[in-house]
């Protein structure tokens, strides 16, 4: 990550393309998690790996510019979302972290399953992305 080659056009070009594929795969993993292998954890890790690829192909500054967020805050938001989905069940007089689901007719998408568990998984996803990126960025930016 430190010593960049002066001219790595191929890497950069491929990276530009592949990052979106990886991100799409991550989104798929995340949404498919409820019924197929995948979920917030893996989705988060794959998303992070896409960002790492960017960092490898370009450098950390570019990643910061492309994704101008503080990943520690992302972790915090993830934790907050997870906790709030749990707290939300209190509003319906249910124990902490009770989930529910329903099948609804959505515009454009048709009949789809909507589960509150996905919200919780979103918290997991954000937390994992934040954690992984915080670790890698802070180690990578060291010296």
């Amino acid at each position, binding site marked *: 990550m430190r010593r960049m080659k002066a001219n790595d056009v191929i890497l950069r070009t491929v990276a530009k393309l592949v990052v979106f594929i990886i991100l799409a795969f991550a989104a798929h993993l995340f949404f498919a998690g*409820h019924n197929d292998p995948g979920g917030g954890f893996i989705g988060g890790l794959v998303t992070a*790996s896409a960002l790492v690829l960017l960092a490898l192909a370009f450098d950390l500054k570019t990643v910061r510019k492309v994704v101008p967020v503080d990943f520690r805050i992302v*972790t915090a938001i*993830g934790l907050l979302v997870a906790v709030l989905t749990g707290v939300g069940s209190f509003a319906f007089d249910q124990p902490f972290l009770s989930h529910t689901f329903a099948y609804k007719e959505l515009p454009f998408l048709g009949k789809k399953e909507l589960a509150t568990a996905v919200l919780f*998984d979103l918290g997991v996803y954000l937390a994992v992305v934040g954690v992984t990126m*915080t670790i890698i960025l802070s180690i990578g930016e060291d010296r």
Partner: protein
Amino acid sequence: MSFMHLAVAAPFAYAAIVPLLHRSFPRVHTGWFVLPLPVALFAYWLSRFAVVRSGVGEEARLSWIPSLGIDLSFHLDGLSLLFVLLITGIGGLVTLYSIFYLSKTKERIGRFYVYLLLFMGAMLGVVLSDNLIALYAFWELTSLSSFLLIAFWHQRERSRYGALKSMMITVLGGFAMLAGFVLLYIMTGTYSVREMIPQVGALASQPLFFWAMALVLVGAFAKSAQFPFHIWLPDAMEAPTPVSAYLHSATMVKAGLYLVARLTPLFGGTSEWFWLVSAFGLATLFWGSFQAVKQTDLKAILAFSTISQLGLIMCLLGLGSAALAFEGNVSDVYVLAMTAAVFHLVNHATFKGALFMVAGIVDHETGTRDIRKLGGLAAIMPITFTFAVVGAGSMAGLPPFNGFLSKEMFFTGVLNASRMNFFSMEAWGALFPIVAWTASVFTFVYSAVFVFKTFLGKAKPEQLPTKPHEAPLGLLLPPAALVSLVVAFGLFPDIASYYLIEPALASIYPSLLAPGDDFHVHISFWHGWTAELFMTIGVVAVGSLLFWQLRRWLGVYGRLPRQWSLNALYDGALEGLERGSARLTNAYMTGSVRHYLLYIFTFLIAVVGYALYRTGAFGAIDPGYPGYAPICIYEAMLVTATLLATLSVPFARSRMTMIILVGAVGYMVVLFFVLFRAPDLALTQMIIETVSVALFLLCFYHLPKLRKETTSRRFKLTNAVVSVGVGAIVAIAALAASGTNGFESIADYYLEESYHLGGGKNVVNVILVDFRGFDTLLEIMVLGIASLGIYAMIKLRAPRQVDRKGDSSNES
């Protein structure tokens, strides 16, 4: 909450406001504020005479921890009243004395009176408590306040040493005593002494009886400075003299005597109690009086004298307990010994308190307590001299002082003991009068030393730090009061016997009295030409001779090697304990993490192995268990590959190889997950393994070159043995566990209900986010904390130089 409770609580409450008074009125000596309290308490307790005399006593109960049978139940009877009067009476005199003894500008008198009041309250609690746990609590409070008082001049090294020594020994005794009390509770089911006494008949046959007795006696002996626990008392003489007079002659050291007397109805009448108490008392009596002669410091003489006199009383308490072994008239002979014990207890408090105050006056007015520098003070300090003569005369057992009477009674007691025909006294009984008589001779000698070397002979004013002169009236009043008591009890002993001794005896021997009857004690000055009188004459004659020839035989003391003394033993034991534990700790706390891991793993092997052995799990391992799945070829291949990769890790020569090998193991585990149909795990494991290998490589980049192992071959061998052992034991545990499937798995529930209840077909995910989402919530929290930790460690790192400085300052 009765008035009795208030009276005990008063010193504690007063101790809380003394510092305020001290600060608010700096120009008045704080002692003047304190003085009214013991005086008022003394007057209050005096007014209870009639109640106690009638044999009823007074009771008050206050709940403390009722569920454990612990309460603050106080009971005032003859024995308690005797002690209560000693504590408050001498407490008042000592307070008055300390007002003139301690300077209000140079000393921290605010603290002094706080400690003194704490002690007074604790001591009142000890002698009034009927509940043994409450008694123990007050008992330890006396140890604590005594510790504080001994180290009052804490800038002196000797004071701190003496305080620590007394603390160690008395607290050791206190713990033993607590254990004894608990044993008593186990046997009787109550902590109340008065409720225990009716159970005495069944008590003696209990197997714990002897241990309870021995443990309680250790506590009493340690507190009352009995051989071999007496060594703390001479070192406690570093305390200010009022403290020595109060604590270490009149009250605290008598707490052990009180306890022995209090528990005599429980333990008395058995031969173990008789022998332990009287033999240790006799040994202490002799050893204390023998050691007192060689001392050159006034307070040291008095300290050993106190030890010896406490031994005398203890011995009499032991002899007196024989009365409980018999019914009828025979026992009267032994009741006499108990009478002597109680009488001498009172006498000792009076004359020893006075003598300590005399020693304090001498110290105060001449600047030294060393008898080698003192002499010829009789003409300069005639009043103090008179007190000294009376006190020492009483201590030596000369007529017409009270010491004479109690010493005569003591001789009667030991002579009776020598005629005993039970407790195997036929063989040893003759020892009692001989040892007692010898000790009395030494007592006479040191009493003479105390008076003659200090007050008679040639004056040596040039050796004294200050110019001696008679003490002020305030210093003289308290010893005057005590000395007049010495003479009063000497001339009219029946006052003491009617008011103090008879009720006290009634509470020591509750079973010997017919209802409505009293003990009738009559102490007469002249009782004819008896053996006791000839013994006293012999004491005076031989004692005078020995004192006259003192210089010739003082060399005897040099004969005993120093390292054999009990002090050397105590110091050596303490030092050995410290050094031994340091060596032990250094032996295994090496600071090497490898060693600690070795201990942990060895312990794991031992504990798990033992548990498997005890539960018979080794036998449960069954190779043909039907629950085992058949092994397929992929599994066999994977296992082989994993094993190869794992086994090569310890033999790798570079870190890079190690990291790659560990990564290989990780990817092998991915394949295992695939093989065992866990797609979520496989995915996660693959990504996590990649990330961790990358992190390893990052670390690798910063690490220094791999160094050659410096550990010895033997240590490596131990490592190998332990690691193989851990592997084996875990494998055995796993095999044994799988072979004994006790319960049905709950997995079926999840498989069935996942879609139905969770709305998802991915059971793993539904479990993670729905069924057991709480775990996941906390796990992502763990991840968040880890990331913040890494961020903090890297970003918030202090600059290098500061780091190094911090390190060096830690090391130095």
